[in-house]
């Protein structure tokens, strides 16, 4: 077991490793507007550049700074986004672009729902047609329960 002063030194050394952080680039509404469209590619979150809250994030912090610089230089939002895409590919975007094959990414859930609705319609057609539902024969033993049920239902009304 380490003596107290040694423990203190060790604790301070560890604190030096663990605690210091560089100051965070604050997310202004302007940065957020663009950052919300860009994926944070740190590998530890599924957030956007604007919403990643890891202080030492090696991706979102430089990305925010870059957005800030480009905005100050007068770049339009789309130009900034295009720059990120040019550098990192389409994976820089938080969502798939709505074009070409990637459009399928957006459409597929709704295609699936539409197909589901068609299936339900077919199901209705198949199982609703034909002979009307008939009352099944009621066994004698059930009569008194049926009467009681009717009475209880009337009570509920």
């Amino acid at each position, binding site marked *: 077991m380490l003596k107290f002063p040694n423990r203190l030194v060790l604790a301070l050394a*560890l604190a030096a490793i663990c*605690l210091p*952080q560089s100051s965070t680039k604050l997310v202004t509404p302007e940065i957020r507007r663009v950052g919300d469209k860009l994926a944070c590619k740190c590998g530890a979150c599924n957030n956007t550049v604007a919403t990643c*809250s890891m202080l030492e994030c090696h991706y979102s912090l430089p990305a925010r700074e870059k957005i800030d610089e480009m905005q100050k230089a007068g770049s339009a939002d789309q130009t900034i986004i295009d720059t990120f895409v040019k550098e990192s590919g389409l994976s820089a975007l938080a969502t798939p672009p709505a074009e070409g094959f*990637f459009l399928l990414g957006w459409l*597929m859930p709704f295609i699936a729902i539409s197909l589901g609705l068609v299936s339900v319609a077919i199901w*209705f057609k198949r199982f609703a047609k034909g002979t009307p539902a008939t009352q*099944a024969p*009621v066994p004698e033993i059930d009569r008194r329960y049926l009467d009681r049920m009717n009475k209880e239902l009337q*009570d509920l009304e």
Partner: protein
Amino acid sequence: MENVGALAIILAFCFSVYAILASVVGKWKANPFLLLSAERAVYCNFLLLTAASGILVYALIAGDFRLAYVAQHSNRSMPTAYKFASWWGGQAGSLLLWAWLLSLYSAIITFQNRRKFRDMMPWTVAILMFVQGFFNLLIAFIASPFDILVQGRGIIDVGDGQGLNPLLQYWTMVIHPPILYLGYVGFTVPFAFAMASLISKQKGEEWIHTTRRWSVVTWFFQSTGILLGAGWAYAVLGWGGYWGWDPVENASLLPWLTSTAFLHSVIMQEKKGMMKIWNMVLVASTFFLCIFGTTLTRTGLVSSVHAFAQSPIGVYFFTFLGLGIAGTIYLILDRLEYLKTETKLESVVSRESTFLFNNLILVASCFSILWGTLFPVISEAVTGEKISVDAPFFNKVNVPIGLSLLFLTGVGPLIAWRRSSVESLKRAFFWPTVGALVLTLVLIFAGIRHFYALMSFALCLFVTWTILGEFYKGSVAIRAKTGQNLLAAAVELTHRNTRRYGGYLVHIGIVIMFIGFTGKAFDKDTTVEVGVGEKFRLGGYEMQVRELVDGDNENYSWRHAKVDVFQNGKLVRTMEPERRGYKASRQPTSEVDIWRRLNEDVYVNFAGSGVGSNKAVIQAYIFPLVSWIWVGFWVLLIGTVVCLIPSKVKLQYARTQVVGVASKQYVEVPK
């Protein structure tokens, strides 16, 4: 000891293989001794895996750092509870937990049904043991938790281990994985019964009656596991989110969605003899999605912060999934004759339809999440271009789907079985609709313009009104008859049909959770670097860092910030977030402080100090209504428990084989 553990697992593998063979051959040759020996092999499998698990837990707690697993996931300074939790902190240990839970479930099922379902049980045992055999194979030969650290020909004892990931050293993490696993593994049982009923060509719904309660319990564990994970993310990760649409989070939600659909559509099969094929598909999908979720976590198919280290284990999982899905599809197609619908639908405007739509929405939601999770992989395979599918995609797609589901939750109970007249619909929907519209107007006048938030609040009121209306009408009728007060009458009403009214309570829980989800639309946050004594503002609060205090213990060193929170100039709270540095792993973590209230949570994260300065980086958030999510969970829990209590009055639904709905039989259960 480690040799005994490894041997126990290998023997368990042998017993699971034997149980499969003995069940199948015993059934085929009609040999009761073989069938009995198969059942005993199930018990032996359980005992052996219990022994192996016990040995691993002992090694973790005692600190046997000759074992690679112990050295990687435990250390001497961790509290005992976290040493125990290291059992499932890594790949091999978590697979052992899977296998052990399945062996426990298999032993319970085999014992409970030792004199029942003689046609079905051998097949049930064979399927359970097939799944068991797969997991035993993995932990016996592919990812053994009893591997020893060696150098040359010598065994090494590293003296101390790396410890459990600091992020996992939190109380919900001690119970979240095993509870989620209780859900994941539990879905094997309804699947085994369903497949056994197909193999043994059962015409009736025995498998459903047998597994209904089991399915509810398993669903409950899955719900609890998911919510505990959300609670952990909220309180530990320091970003204030409870759901990040991470692939592994999604993987836990997928079987939950299909099992929820199953719990609804199974009512159709019980009452109307409909949707038999669909129920088979749902129960099988749920099981395979559970395996798929486990696969995602372990294979590195998609990148996730939750995933274990990449390993060659994926090929085994994909082979198992491929074989299992192919076998299931073959069985269902081969037994279509036994899955014919018994009755016809009488009207589109009926409770039956709402069940159909409910299933459609749940499965669509499941599909869209699965699609979003896998689309990066599909896209890369097709176009060669890697893309990101992050939270904005899932929110855009799933919010409208979720609201549709919420709407159906309110509509369902108001529509009668078989058919509903326009008059009765008007009567049932008029006031809840008026209430929802009035609330929408009030909220608009109050300044809320968020479209989905308005819809969500309106629908929450609509659904609550319809459900409470059902309780109220029934309770009033009972009060008139018995003279009890309204609360006692409501309890009596619930006791008469626990499944129905327990289900309504679960729906209310879901509504309350939706209120919490909707609060997300109004989050506020700020990140500031402030010195001691400096103030900053967020929403209606002013915050001031009063002091920073350092300290340490055996496990970690820490710096503690005391942040005073003022409202209208008055001190209302002192919050104490902490920054820790774990010694063994040299990993920093944040211990956030949350001021939880029903209207909003104030959430403060001490994210660190600037280099060479005595300033604190503080992330402060206001999360409106988030506490409603946890309250909703407790209501859901109570509702599920109510569902499991036997009803005072049992309703049995007789049916004809061809058409029509027969009578309900009331059977008083003796007190």
